[in-house]
């Protein structure tokens, strides 16, 4: 009998070698208690959270929590059904209306996760004979959506406008075209030149889908994302987003002005063949989204945090993923996985949690310590974080 697990041996060996060095397992940390959007207890130690994507700190917002509790009381723990059968409650309609209002768009469709939103929309709208042209650094959910559908998949070099244009121009005449881009790329925290890229896509007759998972709530004048910030949101056919970052709960969505968009509810399998979100989750999401519309002060503080951390780490000699702070993600580039894991552990012992990102999830096989800032991090916390990085970096020999 062939052991079907033999194919995983290389990653089993890599993991064993890493743990044999005595380092704490970076991929099985337990948050024993969560005290606030920015502080949790891990291994009995109070830890500053700098790797949660909880950009706007909505997880403990009193209005959000009250809405969730009320929905639990009024509607129960779960829907036990698909959106197209018994799984659409008043709350699901309300959160879709909140999204339409937030983005000023006609249609919103909520999925049970952000992953499913990309999986469902991409695999459904691009069919046999159509072409998907996408950035090579796209998120796994975008790649999996491509793999699940029947379209021809054509990647181009990250953020390379010319490479994208060349590929669009080579597509046979008459074929349907979908360009898939992200506002913020989550590994390095860099943004896309959406204005230029969307103009090229439109000039070549393509529809455009932009994943704004890492920009919702704080980039753009109304927090609608990078496309809004660059003045091209009207040219985006489909915006994909998530509730598991700035919104502070779980779920995914697509918003669109396409006049026929509502048919997606019947033809999109990851939407139809899964249970809908629990009533408490959609109630917290709707409340949070409406509060994010008035989040200008929090947005300003988050940007301040991002700039302070970027400058502080750069001044101390760390190599960062972007020359300037472009989002609320600051990626610190590690020389290799061993020293990356050692640095991650040293930071945890200092009382700081960041994400360790390693190949193959990372571009160019880099090992990264990914920091995501929160609007609820105080200016003092950011200074504390910089001090922790400095001590840990010296101890591990990275700076």
């Amino acid at each position, binding site marked *: 009998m062939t052991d079907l697990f033999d194919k995983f041996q290389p990653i089993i060996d890599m993991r064993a070698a890493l743990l044999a060095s005595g380092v704490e397992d970076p991929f099985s940390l337990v948050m024993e208690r969560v005290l606030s959007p920015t502080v949790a207890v891990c291994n009995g130690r109070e830890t500053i959270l700098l790797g949660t994507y909880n950009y706007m700190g909505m997880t403990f917002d009193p209005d959000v929590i009250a809405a969730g509790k009320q929905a639990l009381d009024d509607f129960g723990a779960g829907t036990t059904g698909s959106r197209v059968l018994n799984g659409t409650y008043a709350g699901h309609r309300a959160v879709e209306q909140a999204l339409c209002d937030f983005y000023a768009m006609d249609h919103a469709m909520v999925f049970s996760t952000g992953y499913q939103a990309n999986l469902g929309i991409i695999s459904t709208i691009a069919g046999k004979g159509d072409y998907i042209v996408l950035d090579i650094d796209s998120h796994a959910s975008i790649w999996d959506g491509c793999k699940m559908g029947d379209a021809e*998949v*054509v990647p*181009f070099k990250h953020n390379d406008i010319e490479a994208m244009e060349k590929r669009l121009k*080579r597509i046979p005449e008459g074929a349907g075209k979908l360009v898939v881009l992200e506002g913020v790329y989550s590994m390095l925290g860099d943004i896309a030149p959406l204005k230029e890229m969307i103009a090229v896509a439109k000039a070549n007759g393509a529809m455009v889908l932009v994943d704004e998972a890492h920009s919702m709530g704080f980039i753009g004048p109304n927090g609608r994302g990078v496309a809004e910030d660059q003045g091209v949101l009207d040219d985006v056919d489909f915006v994909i987003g998530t509730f598991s970052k700035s919104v502070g709960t779980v779920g995914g969505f697509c918003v669109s002005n396409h006049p026929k968009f509502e048919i997606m509810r019947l033809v999109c399998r990851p939407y139809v063949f899964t249970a809908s979100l629990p009533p408490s989750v959609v109630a917290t999401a709707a409340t949070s989204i409406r509060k994010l519309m008035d989040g200008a002060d929090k947005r300003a503080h988050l940007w301040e945090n991002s700039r302070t951390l970027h400058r502080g780490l750069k001044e101390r000699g760390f190599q960062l993923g972007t020359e300037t702070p472009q989002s609320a993600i600051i990626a610190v580039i590690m020389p290799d996985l061993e020293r990356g894991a050692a640095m991650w552990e040293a930071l945890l012992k200092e009382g700081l949690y960041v994400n360790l990102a390693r190949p193959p999830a990372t571009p160019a*096989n880099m090992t990264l310590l990914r920091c995501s800032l929160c609007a609820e991090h105080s200016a003092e916390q950011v200074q504390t974080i910089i001090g922790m990085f400095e001590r840990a970096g010296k101890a591990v020999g990275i700076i």
Partner: protein
Amino acid sequence: MDRAATAERIAALIAPFNKKGVAITDASTFSGDLEFDSLTVMDFVAAIEDEFDIIISMNQQAEIETWGQLVDAVVKLQG
């Protein structure tokens, strides 16, 4: 363009990616003999696409494992 001429043009493109100078035959595999990782594949495919002004989609790439299969695919894609 005939197969030999196409093979010659692709051969000129692969040189910078064939760091160990592996001798290439029609049966040479990209992942095995040439030890191409996914990033190398992407750069190499982009170079071929630009040279011949064609698209080799991911779907088509999945069917190409050897040098011979690549040359055949490029011949076919040129129409």
